[in-house]
């Protein structure tokens, strides 16, 4: 497929693997921030072929994984209301809340719909004026402009039966939280290419400087990831700590200004809870006063819904790279992909689910035995 297969060429990929293995004089620990990158790494077995030189820690960049239990419970509450059509991106539907997930609410008669664009949710609201339509606005800076656009459009069209349950998070504060952790092991980052397509990389420059870590803005295809890893390893070997851009075909230093303008018009920085990690100051986005009428939490009075995470789930330690998934006491026993305790076990790309699968095959096939 044009513009994809070029970045998946196995021969070039093997060449990059060789180059990384040849560059690293010692094992390095890198974190890929974005869930999309984790997906590629696991799907292509990149962590396996590089295991002698680089340990990849799957970072907190999967919006599904970090959406706090409380917001999931609020979503479940709304979805079960007979007057509500609840719309969401697909992979939020199986994320467990305190008692159940959105798929189970749907099975009980809740009107839960998967949409591919938040603007589709506005359209659902226009077509169903007798219902309240709520969109579950989750994600990082990548989805923020599209979600902001939906709210902006609803206001422009006067669609008053539309609202959003916001659980937006932003990357840099999470990186700071990881770097400030006394147990931090991460020596370099692959920054999320699509987040930076929107935001640029200016805000990462002080981080690289202050914490003396290389940050490489990286794309999502196998060659992107491998090149990003190579660039980070080269910096570490040379004792440099800069922001470099691997994803040159998509990212500019300033990012996408109109998208940023829209986001700042609709959203403002707020403190936000991260599942398993807790509240990180200034790490989230909430609606600005001008758009408060579209805030589902206000509209439906959801502030009273609180939730406590399972004490058995150590997702926070896993997401920070402090604990390997298989070191968690619940791993594989209390917590499996079929009955997950925490979000990283939910999607196949979640760090715990990835290890659950990989660990099982590893027991029989030694790492590196693949031809």
């Amino acid at each position, binding site marked *: *497929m044009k513009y994809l297969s070029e970045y998946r060429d*196995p021969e070039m990929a*093997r060449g990059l*693997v060789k180059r990384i293995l040849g560059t690293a004089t010692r094992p390095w620990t890198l974190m890929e921030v974005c*869930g*999309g990158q984790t*997906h590629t790494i*696991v*799907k292509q*077995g*990149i962590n*396996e*072929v590089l295991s002698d030189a680089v340990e990849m820690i799957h970072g907190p*960049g999967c919006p*599904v994984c970090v959406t706090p239990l409380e917001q999931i*419970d609020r979503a*479940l*509450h709304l*979805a*079960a209301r007979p007057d509500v059509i609840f719309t969401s*991106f*697909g*992979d*939020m*539907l*199986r994320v467990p809340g*305190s*008692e*159940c997930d959105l*798929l*189970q*609410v749907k*099975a*009980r008669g809740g009107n839960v719909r*998967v*949409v591919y664009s938040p603007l589709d949710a506005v359209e659902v609201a226009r077509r169903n004026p007798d219902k309240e339509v709520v969109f579950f606005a989750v*994600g*990082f800076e*990548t989805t923020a402009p599209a979600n902001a656009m939906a709210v902006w459009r609803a206001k422009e069209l006067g669609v008053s039966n539309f609202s959003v349950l916001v659980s937006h998070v932003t990357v840099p504060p999470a990186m700071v939280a990881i770097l400030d952790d006394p147990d931090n092991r991460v020596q370099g980052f692959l920054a999320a290419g699509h987040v930076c397509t929107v935001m640029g990389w200016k805000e990462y420059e002080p981080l690289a400087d202050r914490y003396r870590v290389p940050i490489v803005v990286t794309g999502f295809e*196998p060659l992107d990831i491998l090149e990003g890893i190579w660039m980070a390893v080269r910096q570490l070997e040379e004792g440099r700590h800069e922001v470099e851009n691997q994803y040159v075909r998509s990212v500019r230093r300033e990012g996408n200004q109109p998208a940023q303008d829209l986001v700042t018009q609709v959203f403002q920085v707020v403190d936000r809870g991260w599942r398993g990690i807790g509240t990180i100051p200034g790490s989230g986005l909430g609606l600005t006063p001008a758009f408060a009428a579209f805030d589902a939490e206000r509209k439906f*009075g*959801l*502030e*009273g*819904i*609180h*939730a*406590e995470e399972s004490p058995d789930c150590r997702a926070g330690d896993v997401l920070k790279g402090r604990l390997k998934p298989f070191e968690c006491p619940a791993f594989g026993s209390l917590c499996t*992909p*079929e*009955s997950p305790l925490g979000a990283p076990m939910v*999607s196949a790309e979640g760090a715990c689910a990835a290890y659950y699968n*990989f660990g*099982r*095959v590893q*027991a*029989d*096939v030694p790492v590196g035995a*693949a*031809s």
Partner: protein
Amino acid sequence: MITTAPQGSTLQRITCPTPITAQGQVQLGHGSGGKMSARLLRDRFLPRFSNQYLEGLGDGARIPVEGSEVVISTDTFVVSPLEFPGGNIGHLAVHGTVNDLAMMGAVPKYLSAGFVLEEGLELDVLDRILDAMAEAAAACGVDIVTGDTKVVDHGKADGLFVNTTGVGFLKGDFRPSPELARPGDSVIVSGPLGRHGMAVMAVREGLEFDADIRSDTASLAPLVAALRESVGPHVRCLRDATRGGLASALNEIAQASGVGVVLSGQPPVPPPVEAACEMLGLDPLYVANEGVMVVFVAPEAEGDALAALRAHTVGASAVAIGHVVPEHPRMVVLRTGLGGTRVVDMLPGDQLPRIC
């Protein structure tokens, strides 16, 4: 546990709106062909109906009749929309059961058809579906010999549901079965993946997108006949890769045979299907097919089996995709272009589009 703000809240008594156990209701995921479907069968259906024919968990059952054996198989068809690029529910209803019989090694012969019609269904639509069934049955050499119709209130069915049950006859000793895979066997897929699932998805309400994708709905019986004639004794297992896609079919065989399966690379996917899957964040390995099967054959028969399949239009793109190993029993893995390993597990339920 959901707790509430202690005072001054209008939500004092709020509890989770769905305080239910995980298995309280049937969910759509129970029909996905993945792990939830398997568990529903294992926990609720099989214990109650247990008998030697059912336990094989094949695409049908081989039952004794007058000192001989016949194969019987049944399938129920629900699809929205009823008509899609490349066919309609009528094609599926005939091909689906014909293919299930063929996967058991049988030559399909007779079908029954039971319809649940929804009040308000356009008769023109019904006519097109019945025409498709008649046409498909004739092409497959099967007769629809008995049937039933029921009509339900508007809103109680999605236009039309149809069940077909088929009877087929076995020839000679040809008895492929999911538990017969052996280490060393070659794994062949009869055609490119994902066409049916993505063709339906492209016209589904709320998700319309332009794509040149047609359903692959087709009878696999001629392919099975060609395999039987050419390499019959070497054929171990046949499975059509319907709901749950190729990944589920391979996992089912790996589990039934207690072997591992290694895919030596990404199986063939047509470019428009690949593009649509990329856009929606879906994996073509899990997308439904209605005219693709996997064939496990003894390694020495791989070349002849491929030649037999490729002699037919439906199998023209047949290709070997991997082999059976004694390691990692009951697990399917894919060797990536990098030399890494990816586990191709069965999904718990339906494949959900990814946000990131």
